[in-house]
């Protein structure tokens, strides 16, 4: 139990620092930055209380917003993802996730990809909609969501493969 708390706290801090100091400066093609920090929301234990998860997601987003001076857009997107994550989990992994403590690393490959895909795309869509703050730029929002999502998903899959716990 304490092990999970420590590893999640470290992940929280490391992901924020990695995001603001390194990944926010990539600016691939002028505007594409991968938002790897939502890996925290993806990996957070599935069986922990939902209210704590909501608060942590809010804090994660708010820290990003403070660094980026972006008001509350990351906070809103993160809280939204935290709220609907049970629905996404049920959609991707079926009913089974409710009963047993499923870990992301030992789920079927297809289900895992669909889970990551939905989380990333929804998060980015909410994020960029709030950033533009107007639906007149819907085309720009969709374009940004599309390209940034590809980049983020690639980064997430790579980091998941790199930091996979060793099978015994």
């Amino acid at each position, binding site marked *: 139990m304490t092990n999970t708390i420590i590893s999640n706290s470290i992940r929280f801090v490391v992901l924020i620092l990695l995001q603001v100091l390194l990944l926010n400066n990539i600016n691939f093609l002028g*505007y594409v930055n991968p938002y790897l920090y939502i890996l925290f929301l993806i990996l957070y234990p599935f069986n922990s209380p939902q209210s704590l998860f909501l*608060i942590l997601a809010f804090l994660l987003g708010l820290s990003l917003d403070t660094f980026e001076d972006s*008001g509350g857009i990351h906070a809103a997107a993160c809280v939204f993802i935290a709220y609907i994550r049970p629905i996404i989990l049920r959609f991707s992994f079926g009913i089974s996730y409710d009963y047993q403590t499923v870990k992301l690393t030992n789920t079927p490959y297809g289900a895992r990809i669909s889970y990551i895909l939905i989380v990333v795309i929804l998060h980015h869509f909410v994020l960029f909609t709030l950033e533009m703050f107007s639906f007149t730029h819907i085309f720009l929002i969709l374009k940004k969501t599309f390209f940034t999502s590809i980049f983020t998903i690639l980064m997430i899959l790579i980091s998941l493969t790199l930091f996979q716990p060793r099978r015994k």
Partner: protein
Amino acid sequence: MQQIFNFLIRNKNNILFLLLLALSLFLTIQSHSFHKSKFISSANFITGGIYKKANSIQSYFHLEDYNARLLEENNELRNRLSNVPDTLFRETFIDSTVYEGIYEFRTATVINNNYSKVDNYITLDKGRKDNILPEYGVVTSQGIVGIIDNVSTNYARVISILNTDSKINVQLKKTNHFGSLVWNGKDPNVVQLIDVPRLAPLKKGDTIITGGKSLIFPKGIPVGNIIDFHLDENGSYYTIDIQLFNDMTNIGHVYVIVNKDKAEIRSLEETDND
């Protein structure tokens, strides 16, 4: 009463979600209204400190570039010094032996710079301790950068000209037609000049400078070149695309402009309004 508590406990996640979402939306909306985004700002103790640490490492990679820029600036200033016009023409200048100029420049270093978003901000490593206050202008040797909007003890946040909330008074160098400098959020090196009347004679390549109608920037600071222009729908005002002289993606060191007469002018304007 029991039922209310039961209801609250049963729906605690939904209520918490709505509460947090409302809070973040409130912060988002607040950041879109100029001069109100006070709470969540990178110019605070923690974020400023982290950015400063990171910048102390990153700055080494740009040393060569910054040196080249300094040389260029020194070169230009030296040229100006050695070609000071005849004293007959100098009467229009402010006599610097009697008055110290209205504007004072202070140096600062950019420790965080965004340009990929729609509303971009820059963080500087000087703050209230160094007498830097909101509404001071920020420029480089090549052109304008933005206006300070939020200051903590050691750090300051600048609204970049690459921000949809930014609106700066600028004018044509040749004639005195003025307009407002805005940004459409697309290319970080191209900004837009709006509200220039149709009568203004425009040519591609014309220089745009600051207008000096605000108390923030002195007149004559270079902004950029005209690369394209067209009339708006009504046909009475131009929208002009301007290529910035500044490379907004790589700023480095900046000057903060202090207008020493600002308080006096403000108080004069206020008595006028009564």
